[in-house]
């Protein structure tokens, strides 16, 4: 009946389990929730970029007809934050405001209109403080740092690591390439604005519905800030109308509506405006970077030294992890005998940055893949051949001890080279047309949890009902990426039944076992492996009972097409439903569980926890562009992308994730900018968000999107469920550098920064015409007072993954010892 590799559900092009409710408008998003006696909350946000709060007078607002409650920072004594090392946020600011948009008060009223009107009656007195508008200003000493735990000046965190003696490696090289790049910030722009509803129970418990990707982390933050037992708090993640990392922090508005509901004993709802979503941000860090890379004449890398400077914005958020991620994944793609990096994140009076699709890794990838293009040109090697000569092998360790499992990068490069007809195009197309190639690698889930613990990262429970219905419970959250479909598909495959006979309950901290959340591309693998374990145990329960009933050995039983039968004589058997009844008669009420925790990191040096992953995906892309030399306008003709996915559990969804990644990458390459500007002096000269609206913040429409040719490369990875690896973030990474390389191929100008806009192309063309170096990009990397590097010998130089020194973190003298944990 079922051949070893012929699956009935996995690998099939299926309608996703949540498709029908979405195409009929029945999916309930957070703002669709309507409850009896529900009140509405609006937040008052700071109009100053950096100021002390001197006084807050809410009396007029409180007396306004239709207002039920007004809250301020005084109502929230406890701070929170996604990372244990940066618990620096308060639901409403109490002492200081740190960016225009920082929430300072909340009005709860009969309707949004009333709440909005009452906001204007709140009288807040500020004492302005000096604004930190740029990374350079953030590096200068100050006695009013944005965060007390800053190392010094407005420096949030500095990292310095050396895996082998890189300076020696650079000396041995025939050529050392020294290039600086800048990657502008951008935001997730999920079409659904954040929304949440808090509902207090009569017995003092509270439920929060919220558009969040991480109900578990919101649950922990609420327990801390509301000073309530977590067991009395329930967080239900509504289906996200897009997340992309923008809904992975616990947020002010979630805690405020929960608190308000507890105080009023009525449901309280909030829905942010689009402008407010820009202020929540937690998007792509703007990063200045410098890469010094040694290469031999025959195209082998000898070593690389990377420096990155991240403009973090006002709060920590995931910042420490983001800082690591601007460095740790670089050695995955090409063999780097020695690797060292220095990374620094600073605070500025801007909306805080955090994880956006790719979380810190697209930025250094942009620089690295452009530099490789420059190296290939110098060595007169074809960029694809050059990369094929240095791709990292499967099943190996990198210099910084990341353990690579399956690695299809070689196949990816070969496939896109063929499919895009690269050989007949690169350096061969007429002026104005060009092709560019780039590769990348990404993790399938962070190996270390956000908070240190020894528990599973994902848990699944299965209830078997005598009606034949299988209900699967998991904390993972559907944000559009298809996690519900993966969960149901895997269980259906193991139990040999149809997805329609399975119902999944996800993202509800009361009902579902913990899953850490939908971030770092971890859900398919970690939830998937837990689901397979749970389904396997359920299957064993059934098989034990049916084998006994049919008097045949257990391993003679097959599960397929809704039946349980003797593989030798398929007519002997019963329907799945009958089999469940048979099992319930034998075992009593049927339930099974499964859980997954990633393997321990190989290395032991401090900070080794960021970067390891159960397995890594690889991608290669060729982008073809047309550049109009009169206007500088860039037209993407087509994109060819190959992605090493292990196995596509549902090819329709896998292709959707890949094309969606390409789309978001093109946006960041050509038009998206999350930046600030100064208001006119006669107004307030305040540093404000430049384009906090969808009219001004540009993103691709259907007109701007080119045809994408997707090549799915499958060699199943033993660590993944049925061999599956990630697909939601990796394919974004190669797009931006491939576009930059294509522009160079088309018109011979180097735009070493994002976004690549028509005016930058024109400026570069003019430089070229006047005989100067046709390059737009940063000239210099700023001077930073780096700490001593943690030194770790690479595996092939006899290293065992431990640091050979223990340098103290650089701190300003007056720093009291705030954060004991090095990093999580």
């Amino acid at each position, binding site marked *: 009946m079922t051949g070893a590799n012929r699956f009935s559900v996995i690998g099939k092009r299926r309608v996703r389990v949540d498709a029908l409710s979405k195409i009929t*408008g029945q999916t309930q998003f957070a703002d669709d929730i309507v409850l009896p006696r529900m009140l509405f909350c609006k937040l008052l946000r700071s109009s100053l970029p950096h100021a002390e709060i001197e006084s807050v007078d809410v009396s007029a607002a409180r007396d306004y007809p239709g207002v039920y409650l007004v809250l301020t920072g005084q109502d929230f004594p406890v701070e929170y934050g996604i990372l244990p090392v940066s618990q620096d946020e308060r639901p409403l600011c109490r002492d200081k405001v740190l960016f225009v948009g920082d929430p300072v008060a909340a009005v709860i009223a009969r309707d949004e209109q009333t709440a909005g009107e009452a906001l204007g009656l709140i009288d807040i007195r500020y004492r302005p403080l000096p604004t930190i508008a740029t990374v350079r200003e953030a590096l200068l000493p100050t006695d009013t740092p944005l965060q007390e735990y800053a190392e010094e000046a407005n420096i949030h965190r500095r990292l310095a690591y050396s895996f082998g003696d890189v300076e020696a490696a650079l000396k041995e090289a025939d050529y050392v390439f020294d290039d600086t790049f800048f990657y502008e910030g951008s935001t997730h722009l999920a079409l659904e604005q954040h929304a949440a509803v808090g509902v207090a129970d009569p017995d003092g418990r509270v439920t929060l519905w919220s558009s969040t990707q991480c109900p578990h982390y919101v649950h922990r933050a609420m327990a801390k800030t509301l000073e309530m037992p977590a067991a009395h708090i329930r967080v239900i993640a509504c289906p996200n*109308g897009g997340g992309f990392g923008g809904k992975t922090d616990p947020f002010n508005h979630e805690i405020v509506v929960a608190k308000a509901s507890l105080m009023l004993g009525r449901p309280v709802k909030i829905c942010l405006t689009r402008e407010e979503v820009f202020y929540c941000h937690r998007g792509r860090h703007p990063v200045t970077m410098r890469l010094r890379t040694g290469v031999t004449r025959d195209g082998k890398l000898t070593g690389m030294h990377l420096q990155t400077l991240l403009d973090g914005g006002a709060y920590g958020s995931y910042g420490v992890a983001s800082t690591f991620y601007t460095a740790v994944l670089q050695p995955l793609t090409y063999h780097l005998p020695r690797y060292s990096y220095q990374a620094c994140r600073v605070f500025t009076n801007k909306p805080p940055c955090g994880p956006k699709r790719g979380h810190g890794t697209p930025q250094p990838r942009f620089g690295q893949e452009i530099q490789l293009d420059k190296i290939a040109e110098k060595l007169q090697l074809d960029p694809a051949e050059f990369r094929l000569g240095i791709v990292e092998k499967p099943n190996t360790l990198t210099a910084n001890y990341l353990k690579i499992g399956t690695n299809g990068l070689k196949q990816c490069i070969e496939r896109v080279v063929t499919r895009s007809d690269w050989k007949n195009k690169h350096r061969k197309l007429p002026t104005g047309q060009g092709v560019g190639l780039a590769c990348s690698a990404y993790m399938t889930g962070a190996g270390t949890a956000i908070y240190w613990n020894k528990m599973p990262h994902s848990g699944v429970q299965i209830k078997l009902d005598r009606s034949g219905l299988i209900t699967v419970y998991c904390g993972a959250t559907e944000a559009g990426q298809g996690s519900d479909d993966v969960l149901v598909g895997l269980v259906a495959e193991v139990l040999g039944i149809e997805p329609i006979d399975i119902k999944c309950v996800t993202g509800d901290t009361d009902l579902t076992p913990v899953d850490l959340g939908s971030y770092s591309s971890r859900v398919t693998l970690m939830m998937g492996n837990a689901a397979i374990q749970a389904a396997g145990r359920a299957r064993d329960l059934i098989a034990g009972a049916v084998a006994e009933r049919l008097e045949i050995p257990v391993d003679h039983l097959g599960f397929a097409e809704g039946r349980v039968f003797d593989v030798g004589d398929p007519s002997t058997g019963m329907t799945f439903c009958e089999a469940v009844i048979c099992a319930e008669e034998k075992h009593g009420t049927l339930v099974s569980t499964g859980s997954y925790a990633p393997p321990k990191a190989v290395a032991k040096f401090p900070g080794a926890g960021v970067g390891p992953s159960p397995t890594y995906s690889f991608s290669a892309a060729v982008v073809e562009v047309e550049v109009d030399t009169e206007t500088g306008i860039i037209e993407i003709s087509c994109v060819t992308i190959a992605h090493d996915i292990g196995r596509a559990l549902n090819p329709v969804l896998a292709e959707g994730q890949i094309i969606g990644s390409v789309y978001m990458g093109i946006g960041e390459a050509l038009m998206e900018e999350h930046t600030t500007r100064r208001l006119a002096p006669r107004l307030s000269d305040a540093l404000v968000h430049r384009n906090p609206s969808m009219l001004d913040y540009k993103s691709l429409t259907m007109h701007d999107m080119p045809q994408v040719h997707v090549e799915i490369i499958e060699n199943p990875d033993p660590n993944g469920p049925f061999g599956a690896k990630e697909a939601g973030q990796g394919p974004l990474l190669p797009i931006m550098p491939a576009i930059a390389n294509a522009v160079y191929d088309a018109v011979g100008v180097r735009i070493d920064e994002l976004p690549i806009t028509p005016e930058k192309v024109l400026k570069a063309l003019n430089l070229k015409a006047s005989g100067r170096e046709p390059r737009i990009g940063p000239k210099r990397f700023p001077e930073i007072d780096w700490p001593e590097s943690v030194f770790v010998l690479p595996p092939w130089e006899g290293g065992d993954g431990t640091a050979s020194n223990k340098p103290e973190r650089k701190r300003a003298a007056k720093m009291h010892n705030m954060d004991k944990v090095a990093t999580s």
Partner: protein
Amino acid sequence: MTEANKITRNRPGNVHLSLNVNGENLQVSVAPYKTLLEVLREDLVLTGTKHGCELGECGTCTVLVNGQAVLSCLLLALECEDVEIETIEGMAKDRKLHPLQQAFAEHGGSQCGYCTGGMLMSAKALLDSQPQPDGAQIREALSGNLCRCTGYQQIIDSVKAAAATMRDGATSPGGDTP
């Protein structure tokens, strides 16, 4: 706590409207400044129509007014008394999915689903007026509907597939609403 529902300012009294939505005549009493979007979502609890930008830019609030794709966030409910309004909830007629809905499901035209209602409305307006559109016409008709998940390609594929199904007159296979 002052007496909450006493309105001291001269906020205008509600207006009584009779709206034809998805073929049904519905009566509402709403503040005159409310947009059609707000009335659909808050007063008629037809929450399939979404909001994403508050300024007529994202397309998630698209509905059909007399068969035309319109941004309901830029339309006062007051202006909609004698027009036929269709929302995503009315697209499947007597429990049978419209071929566009079936195609979106089969070709990955909907990932998170937040733009899907508006996208389907624009697509329906297109096919109603141009049954066999080419790629350029599809892009033009749907360029006002932003999507952040799909990269649009599987949406275009879905519209093409639906047009083919409708051309061949085949009722979409097994297209019943569950």
